């Protein structure tokens, strides 16, 4: 396959832990095969800051602040196929555990009451993204084409999903590859 025919892929982590990205790296030597088929646009692997026109966008993490929404919408606008990768992108996941605790109480607990902190100030730099009172899965904000569940999805599931997608097949996971945990 020629260089100019490579499929362009962008990835990012919103309110996630980068565990799904780690699982992608876990495909090990298949990464070399993958790199013959795709080239990366915005991704932690390239450090490109904004997503350009892409074929596939992989989103890890849910939406917990205003910046997440801007990034997500940029991905949706630029990616032909948008994939929610992992539990946080699909259900809100671990960050959504705070959904029934008030934002102010959360901040107090983390920045004021927790021992060993100096100053006890709640960060309020205008550069910091505005947090939402609840964390949401990405499909509650933009249309999502495919879902790849797991916490994280196993490397094998990511490989199967991507190779199906790149080959133009409808992605299909075997029973043992479909996990919500």
């Amino acid at each position, binding site marked *: 396959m020629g260089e100019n025919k490579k499929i362009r892929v962008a990835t990012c982590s919103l309110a996630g832990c980068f565990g799904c990205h780690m699982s992608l790296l876990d495909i090990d030597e298949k990464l070399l095969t993958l790199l013959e088929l795709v080239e990366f646009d915005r991704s932690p692997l390239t450090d490109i800051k904004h997503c350009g026109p892409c074929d596939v966008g992989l989103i890890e993490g849910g939406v917990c602040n205003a910046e997440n929404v801007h990034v997500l919408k940029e991905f949706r606008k630029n990616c032909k196929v948008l994939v929610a990768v992992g*539990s946080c992108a*699909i259900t809100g996941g671990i960050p959504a555990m705070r959904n*029934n605790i008030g934002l102010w109480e959360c901040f107090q607990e983390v920045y004021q009451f927790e021992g060993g902190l100096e100053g006890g100030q709640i960060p309020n730099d205008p550069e910091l993204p505005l947090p939402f009172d609840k964390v949401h899965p990405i499909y509650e904000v933009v249309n999502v084409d495919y879902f790849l*569940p797991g916490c994280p999805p196993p490397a094998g599931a990511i490989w199967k999903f991507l190779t199906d997608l790149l080959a133009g097949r409808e992605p299909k996971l075997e029973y043992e590859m479909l996990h*919500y*945990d």
Partner: protein
Amino acid sequence: MSNTITIDGQTVPFEEGQTIMDAALAAGVYIPHLCHNPEFTPHGSCKLCTVNVNGRNVASCTMPAVEGQQIANDTAELNAKRLALTQMLFVEGNHFCPFCEKSGNCNLQAVAYHLGMMSPRYNHFYPAREVDATHPDILLDRNRCILCELCVRASRDVDGKEVFGLSGRGIHCKLVVNSASGDLVDTDLAATDKAASVCPTGAIIVKRCGFSVPIGERIFDHKDIGKVQIEAAQREKSHG
């Protein structure tokens, strides 16, 4: 030929008094279900076991088997309805598999796997639900409760204690504990009770048992819930 029904073209025998679900399980035909447990009186509330009998949708766990019934079960249309019901259960509560002790052994999760659920699809409610950790041996996490009443039935019919009940209607319906304080610690519920182990989700779990079975060796890690439940029914049958 008498006392047979037809499920998806397969002839299934039944005994007088059996429901469609009973006959199907005995014959090795899986009908997805959550609130039903063959050990207890059918409840008919989750509607996951809905089948089409002679053109009409009914809950197979409560519908008596009657000679000559033509039943559709494993169809794309019915499985789509079951998937939608399951997705609604996921968004109505707070079901976070990654940090749930029941993950891998959970019927709700396993039914979702069986139906190929890739996302909960609907907007999440993220309801505020109470956790009761007062009991020294048992945790009650209402975030994971699907109101199937299996604990209510087990406590009442097997343990003879009537520890649990449902209170309220519609979206306000919740699992309540039968003690003056409303706390689990003030009941005589014991970790060895049927009610402590019957929960199909992680709403009622015995403490200090979580994550004791490693990932890869849990009930549904390699085996579909249909196969697991059919095998359990066959074992029950062979043991009389």
